[in-house]
């Protein structure tokens, strides 16, 4: 006869309470600090997916792996950088990091676009920069008003949220604008041939691109609180904030993000429209190339 009692106490593996006790120590009340092991549990979930992908030959295991590693490294570096900047608490490094994030957002916005024209990177960076910084400045200086104004724990996450959304909008809008212009070339050119100005001929495509770019944020806003609890609010609730406070912040940030997307999209489309048309009311088809 095997004595289960003895066995379980000699082999800690079988003693679940002990195992959990050893690795997953009960946290002090109110703390949400994660250990690296706890992060590892989340990674395991994705690891299982990668195994399934390998078994089924889905061919995305490698991409899951590289994206995971990339994301981990990027966020780890961000953590270290933020730690440094938080400690410094000087405006210059905060603005420097903000500028770097902005440029990267502009470049990433273009990376996902199929059709490009020569100055598209410059335009996308300018559009991201202008929209995100105007909106974030208003949020920081007039709404949140941290002391000092450059408090990195306020500025950096807010800007990050605005940038991430703005870049998605700009990317969708530009992609739609340029591909649709190419697809509807015959229609656009017929309008020009019948006396349309360049704006009259491109207006339809411009509007459609704007609409496409705004759909994700409009969807997010319409299901917020019903289907999903938005990320920022989740974070605040986890950190122990009052639900009403978290909700107020979330509503504010939704407005801010939507405004940043709208400004960024219209700006990037207007610049692109100027770049692919000329004052002779012609479309510069040769400038639009597949990447």
């Amino acid at each position, binding site marked *: 006869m095997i004595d289960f009692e003895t066995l379980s106490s000699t082999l800690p593996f079988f003693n679940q309470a002990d195992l959990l006790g050893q690795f997953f120590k009960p946290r002090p009340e109110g703390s949400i600090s994660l250990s690296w092991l706890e992060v590892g549990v989340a990674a395991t979930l994705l690891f299982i997916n990668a195994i399934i992908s390998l078994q089924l030959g889905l061919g995305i295991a490698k991409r899951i792996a590289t994206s995971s590693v990339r994301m981990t490294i990027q966020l780890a570096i961000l953590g270290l950088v933020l730690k440094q900047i938080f400690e410094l608490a000087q405006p210059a490094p905060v603005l420097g990091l903000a500028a770097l994030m902005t440029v990267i957002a502009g470049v990433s916005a273009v990376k996902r676009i199929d059709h490009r024209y020569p100055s598209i990177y410059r335009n996308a960076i300018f559009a991201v920069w202008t929209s995100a910084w105007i909106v974030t400045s208003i949020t920081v200086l007039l709404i949140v008003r941290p002391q000092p104004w450059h408090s990195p724990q306020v500025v950096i996450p807010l800007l990050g949220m605005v940038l991430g959304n703005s870049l998605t909008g700009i990317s969708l809008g530009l992609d739609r604008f340029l591909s649709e212009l190419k697809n509807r070339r*015959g*229609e656009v*050119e*017929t*309008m*020009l*041939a*019948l*006396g*349309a*100005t360049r704006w*009259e001929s491109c207006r*339809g495509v411009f509007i459609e691109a704007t609409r496409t770019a705004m759909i994700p944020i409009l969807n997010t806003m319409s299901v917020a609180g019903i289907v999903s609890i938005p990320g920022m609010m989740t974070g605040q609730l986890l950190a122990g904030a009052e639900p009403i406070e978290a909700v107020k912040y979330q509503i504010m940030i939704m407005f801010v993000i939507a405004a940043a997307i709208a400004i960024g999209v219209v700006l990037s489309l207007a610049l692109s429209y100027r770049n692919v048309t*000329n*004052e*002779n*009311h*012609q479309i*510069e088809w*040769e400038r639009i190339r597949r990447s």
Partner: protein
Amino acid sequence: MSKTPLIRLRDVSRHDNSTGKQLLNAVSLQVRGGDRIGLVGASGSGKSTLLRAMAMLDRFSGELLYQEKQITHDAIPSYRREVIYMSQRPFFTYGTVEENLRLPFQFKSSQGSGRGRSFQTEIAATALDRFELPAQILDQPCESLSGGEQQMIALIRALLMEPRILLFDEPTAALDSDARDKYEQRIQEWHSESMADPEAERAFLWTSHDPAQIDRMTGKIITMDQGTLKTFPEADPNQQQSQIDGESQHDQSAEALND
């Protein structure tokens, strides 16, 4: 015979930036009221490119004068209303035939009063009737029409705007012979309608790979090869009379007008 040209091209060149190919090479050409010019040449010889340049749809070097005047940037849409490029395949915006026929009149260049400045249902109905198209077609979506009907509607759309010059890029390539005859006849009618008034004379350029059609439709023939004109009917205004004579034995109407 001192009529000023409607369009004067001087050394118009265009090259494709991506391939470096010379699409048009120093083309000089004049189009006068009453002209019916046939543009012939192999595929890729630059016929469409030349027509597009005349409608100022592409960037080119050289000079284009309309009624002996430079066209300012802002005046280009109005110029294109007068000199309409008809693409080989007709294109429409999403919507019914009527919406498409109305579209050009919503452009800024259609503002102002006068013939061809506003959409008039009766005129549109008459135009449809000439092609034996029923008036109900106005309510049909353009994409539901046959290729031949689309070509007719595209022509009607242009004619309603009362242009001075039409630039046809193989317009009947996709039509059966019956539709082609109607199309040709309508253009000849349009061309001769204004003959009484020398100030309102109309002209057209026509490209085609069908020599018989070029013969039927046009008075002067210009041959293109690798972006250049092989025959220069009016390159030099002083020599134009003899050159026109050489090119246009079968063009009674143009001859009569030139006298």
